[in-house]
């Protein structure tokens, strides 16, 4: 497929590994960050086309990561999909306010997630 680059931010290594397999099988390149601080750092270095972001993270949670990314002009337009085990109630709205483009509760439906990723990448906000 496109060879677009997706940054996966999650502190659960099993999850990131699973996502990597799933995304690579669909033709995406993947990079990882296991905490909020390195998420921003790696985003700067790697310039991903999309970010899959967990909310509960060490060293700066998902909301802080979104705030940082939205404040960096070079990164502010990268679409962000929040992928969290948290209750959508409350968190979803907050995530959208912080700049998320979509919210999925774990475990997410693979098809739906891939469809959303594809659409955002095609549109290239």
């Amino acid at each position, binding site marked *: 497929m496109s060879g677009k680059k997706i940054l996966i931010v999650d502190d659960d290594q099993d999850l990131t590994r*699973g996502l990597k*397999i799933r995304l690579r099988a669909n033709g995406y390149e993947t990079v990882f960050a296991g905490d909020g601080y390195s998420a921003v750092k790696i985003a700067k270095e790697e310039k991903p086309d999309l970010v899959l972001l967990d909310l509960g993270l060490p060293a700066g949670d998902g909301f802080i990561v979104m705030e940082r990314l939205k404040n960096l002009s070079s990164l502010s337009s990268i679409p962000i999909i929040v992928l969290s085990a*948290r209750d959508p109630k409350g968190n979803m709205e907050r995530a959208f306010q912080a700049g998320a483009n979509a919210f999925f509760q774990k*475990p997410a439906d693979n098809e739906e997630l891939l*469809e959303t990723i594809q659409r955002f990448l095609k549109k290239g906000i």
Partner: protein
Amino acid sequence: MKDTPVKVLMIEDHRDIAFLLKEMLTKEKSSSFTVEYAYSLKEGFERLDNGNIDVVLLDLGLPDSQGIGTFEKLSEHTKDVPIMVLTGQEDQKLAFQAVQQGAQDYLFKGEVDSKVLVRSIRYAIERHRMVVELERHVRRLKESESRFHTMIEKNVDGIVIVDKQGVVLFVNPAAEDLLGRTLEELIGELFGFPLVSGEKTELEIFRKEGGTTAVDMRMVETEWEGRSVYLASLRDITDRKRMLLELKQTQQQQLELKDQFLSNVSHELRSPLTAIHQFITIMLDGLAGDISSEQRDYLEIVLRNLKQLRTMIDDLLEVTRAETVSLTIELRPISVGELITETFDTLHATASSQEIVLSSEVPDELSPVFADPDRVRQIIINLVNNAIKFTPEKGTITIHAQPYEKDPRFLCISVTDTGCGISPEDKERIFEYLYQVENTVELSRKGLGLGLYICKELVSHHGGQIWVESQSGQGSTFFFTLPFFSLTDLLTPIFTPKNLLKGSIAFVTVEMLPAEERFLTKTDERALRGSFNLLKSCVLPDLDVLLPRIGRTKKGEIFFLVASADQQGTEVLTSRIKEQLTSCEEIKNAGLDPMVSFAMVDIPSRVDEKPREQLVKEMADSIETLVNKSLYKRRNYK
């Protein structure tokens, strides 16, 4: 008296007189006397000290004491025995004096005959007995009065005596404290609180130093110093109330803590579940190499169980929501027949693995119900899964749907199984929170005791009822009701005579279609849900009604609003809606293009002459025509 002789002590130094008197007494037949003598006061004392004397005949002139002093000394010494004084005729004054000081009677020596003597003695004894009795009564009365006073004075409850006109007659110290005023300040004043006998009232008393005292007041009618009065008893309940409030707050905190805990638990459980789900689907999708059909079978079993686990976790979260009343349901007209067919697809795998036959009996022409399809699906899946759990292999489970006999405004849906049935005790409690049926040893899975509780919550949020009929060993049937959809019911609140008389009703349509023609994606559906919520926030209660989501197709959705507004008002409303929808990120991201338009609706003339029900029905019909026209128009257009 005849049986027990009267014991007379005669204190008399003149033996002849003494003897004479004794003669008189013993001669008397009507009663018997025994007579003893003492010849001096000292001797008299000694004899009296031995006790057992009923009456004393006392000569005032004795060798060791003369005059009134003799009586005084004796009465001082012996309080309990009546004394009769013997004097000579010349000492009349002395005799009176003695009687004044408590002697029972006096006799003049030499003027006494036996009859007079006997009678005098009898009277003396009787009189004395009465005096003693009276004294005892008075003493008791005094004691009881002082006890009563102590009770009132020392009572921790405030006591106020108020006459029938509401004027304060008495307050005890506790009442002085409670009312913050003294007895002197209060007496003669109006009490100022309602006087209702037998009732308990709660009062708030403003304290001089600020703040209030909460007081429980009870009133009874009683007698007080010969008058009919009210006795108000006041109890300070400020502390008790404060403690109750604190207790309530603590309970609330604990409830919140529990909700927080359950929310955290479900969050924590979800992470490992996600990893399991991910890798199983990776294997099933062949992303880790080919798998045999046997391996596929097994993985599908894992996946199915995983879904069940996920449902349980969702249930946990659902329950915390139900308790904090944040459970959301989105009502719309839905076809229960379609919904049942849909859920059967989901349930079939589980049922067929146990060789259970699932069937449904739903009439073709069933009016739509007004419900949240996701929630109804949840209820049906819950009930059927439950039935599967308790039904042995080769059993059957049947779903019926038909108008509810007892209330035709509702549809009654039932799930009947051929399982083990439910005992009467369980039947009572089966919908309770965390209730689990006992003796389910043969079952490998007990569940959390939340499924039916959630069903009950969901059904009651729809305004329906849920119940079960069953006999042990003969299967069970779970019933629940859902209201039929009625546009008329929905519109009734805004079609008030007042609104209709104003003569302006607008029909607003909001079309949400993708900018370029395509099928709706799941993201679109999220955005559409969001749009509906946005529209809800634009609606004014009593004036506007946002119709439920009835205009969805595979390519887009139309929302409908009925507003009691004139042309100008509707323009304001539509521009606000347009603004809200176009500025929404979610809608923008999904690529949906909102189009808002409106038409004014004709109101039948002579509104005030028609019965309201008929009017509302007519209006609802014309709205329905408009809805159908819009839906038809768009289908043609596309």
